[in-house]
């Protein structure tokens, strides 16, 4: 807990807030990429402590939020076909086109909530007469463990295990946001945990091409205000480069062992993002030699396609064009109890963060 108490220190946080206030002269829009950072900002009340000129825009870095609707429907389809579906916890309440995984479980589906995909391989071993699928969603952060589960299953000869892959990558999403005609982002706080795996070499060309500061940032209050200060400092000086605020965790080259595991089983391919659409080369898919572990192929469900809910502006939220409370459905027809889209469900979703922790709902 030492690292936590140090980075939740009142005096240190205050001193960085003061630095931001003393440095900022113009209004700047800074996007924090990761949903964990959004929650850190809202949960600790940081948004209200920042000077008005430092405006935070909430990014697309919530793995639950960007998982396309049809993937959820595919998982539900599997549940209905006597397959044991294993998932990370916050995926299960996200609505598919007709229902959520949690509702499918109530109807009799065998859904297991796990912290580690390796446990799903254990379940497969213990249930040799059943098929077991792990719902492999997430950014670069969850990819190594998901990849490892496949290698583990292969090594142990577990044939009744496969993964339903919906892995997305951060840098292509940042590029898609910057290319959007409505984009007004001045700087990024890069997602610390993604960079802990991948390193941050690939961010240099982005900073260069779009002339935008990128600060790899952590998740605790002190991390966040320090990251914001570093961004403001660059913006005020008119420079744009990659800086690493989260150096206690993130190394330039990332975690080499984890990257190797990813590269063993995954290759880069096009991916659909919920609310944003297909982004070229923005995700992982299983390599040909691991096709036997691809649940979509194994169960012939790759043709399931469903349209997005037109009342939900998740795409604009995820690209930072609109804030949650600017959505006409926010807190009215769309609540965590009855969500229209994923950002209202996930614990990292921007809409859920605003709904649970911030004053916007009360005053609206």
């Amino acid at each position, binding site marked *: 807990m030492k690292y936590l108490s140090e980075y*939740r220190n009142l005096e240190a946080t*205050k001193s960085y807030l003061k630095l931001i206030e003393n440095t900022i002269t113009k209004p700047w829009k800074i996007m924090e990429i990761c949903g964990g950072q959004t929650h850190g900002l809202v949960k*600790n009340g940081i948004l209200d402590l920042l000077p008005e000129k430092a405006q935070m825009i909430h990014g697309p870095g919530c793995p639950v939020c960007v998982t396309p609707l049809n993937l959820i429907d595919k998982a539900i389809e599997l549940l209905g076909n006597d397959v044991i579906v294993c998932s990370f916890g916050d995926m299960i309440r996200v609505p598919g086109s007709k229902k959520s995984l949690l509702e499918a479980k109530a109807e009799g589906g065998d859904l297991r909530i796990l*912290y*580690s995909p390796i446990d799903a391989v254990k379940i497969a071993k213990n249930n040799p007469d059943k098929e077991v699928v792990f719902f492999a969603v997430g950014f670069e952060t969850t990819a190594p463990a998901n990849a490892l589960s496949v290698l583990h299953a292969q090594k142990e000869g577990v044939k009744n295990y496969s993964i339903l892959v919906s892995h997305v990558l951060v840098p292509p999403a940042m590029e898609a946001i910057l290319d959007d005609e409505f984009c007004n982002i001045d700087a990024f706080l890069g997602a610390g945990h993604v960079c802990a795996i991948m390193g941050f070499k690939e961010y240099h060309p982005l900073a260069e091409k779009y002339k935008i500061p990128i600060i790899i940032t952590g998740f605790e209050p*002190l991390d966040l205000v320090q990251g914001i200060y570093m961004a403001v400092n660059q913006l005020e000086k008119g420079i744009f480069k990659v800086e690493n605020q989260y150096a206690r965790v993130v190394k330039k080259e990332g975690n080499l062992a984890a990257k190797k595991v990813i590269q063993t089983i995954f290759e880069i391919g096009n991916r659909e993002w919920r609310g944003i659409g297909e982004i070229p080369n923005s995700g992982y898919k299983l390599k040909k030699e691991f096709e036997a572990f691809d649940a979509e192929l194994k169960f012939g469900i790759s043709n399931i396609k469903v349209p997005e809910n037109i009342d939900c502006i998740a795409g604009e939220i995820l690209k930072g064009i609109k804030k949650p409370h600017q959505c006409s459905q926010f807190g009215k027809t769309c609540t*965590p*109890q009855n969500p229209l889209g994923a950002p209202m469900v996930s614990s990292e979703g921007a809409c859920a963060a605003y709904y649970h922790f911030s*004053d916007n709902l*009360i005053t609206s």
Partner: protein
Amino acid sequence: MDAKNLGFDTINLGHGSGGTMTRDLLDKIIFKTFDNPYLNQKHDGSIVKFNSKIAISTDSFVISPIFFKGGNIGELAVNGTVNDVAMCGAIPKYLSLAFIVEEGLKIDEFIKIVNSIKSAADKSGVQIITGDTKVVERGKGDKIFINTTGFGEVHPKANISTNNIKAGDKIIVNGLVAQHGMAIMSQREGLEFESTIESDTTNVNFLVNDLLDEFGNEIHLFRDPTRGGLASVLSEISQDINKGITIYEDKIPLEKQVAAACEILGLDPLYVANEGLFISIVDAKVADDVVELMRKDTKGKNTACIGEITNEHPNKVVMHSIIGGKRIVSPLIGEQLPRIC
């Protein structure tokens, strides 16, 4: 009570049939363990006398796993209902006890649970005066479900009501938050992690009684934040009284290991279940004395004043964060789910 020499190893459907097997189970285990004049009449119900207004509370217990660090479903079923009666400002006297057992439950597990019920009942000074045992087919239950209903005499000085709460009242908790929920979480399938976190299940009726003896109607409300945690109960109270509640993150008693487990699992301790924890909302002028009295009791040694009632932000709970920010504390919706990363 010993599982040996009973003539059966597991509970089966016959034990809930109402016939001789049921009688056998009751005679050899239930009546023998709880032996008291009310139960010994072996009637369909019991007749009891009260000297004052009575408080009644019922609760069903379906926890899984049934044995966990710091307790089991049996003592939970006693303490939970005893505490609910105490929260009404009453002194719990009697309990009803009803089992729904899934066939196949090992008799030694059943006896262990029954013995825990007896011991918890003795510790909180209540008697089991009526009960029921049903057995359901395998797959139709989850080992054992228990329902208890508690009856208590309202303390002569008690005046517990949300109507009495006013701005300025202080909010006091008697101990560490999130202990029970994290103890259970540490043993669930797929989440097992090494820890020494124990459930805080215990009876708090004597401490409540002492508080009422000493402070009477200066105590405006008791409430135990079990499921949904501290956040949900405080939100409910603020909505019930149409006033605001302010709490301070740095004042909330949280054990280091529990805090770390919550961090790792992505859970907010404010929403994690408690069992031996209760909130007292008291007049500000007695708050310090209440804290002092509670800290002298073993069930209140970590007592802390965590916040107050305010006329600002009605119907909302606002928490001042450690770093000086503010956030809304909203009630729990559905179950708290672990995060992806």
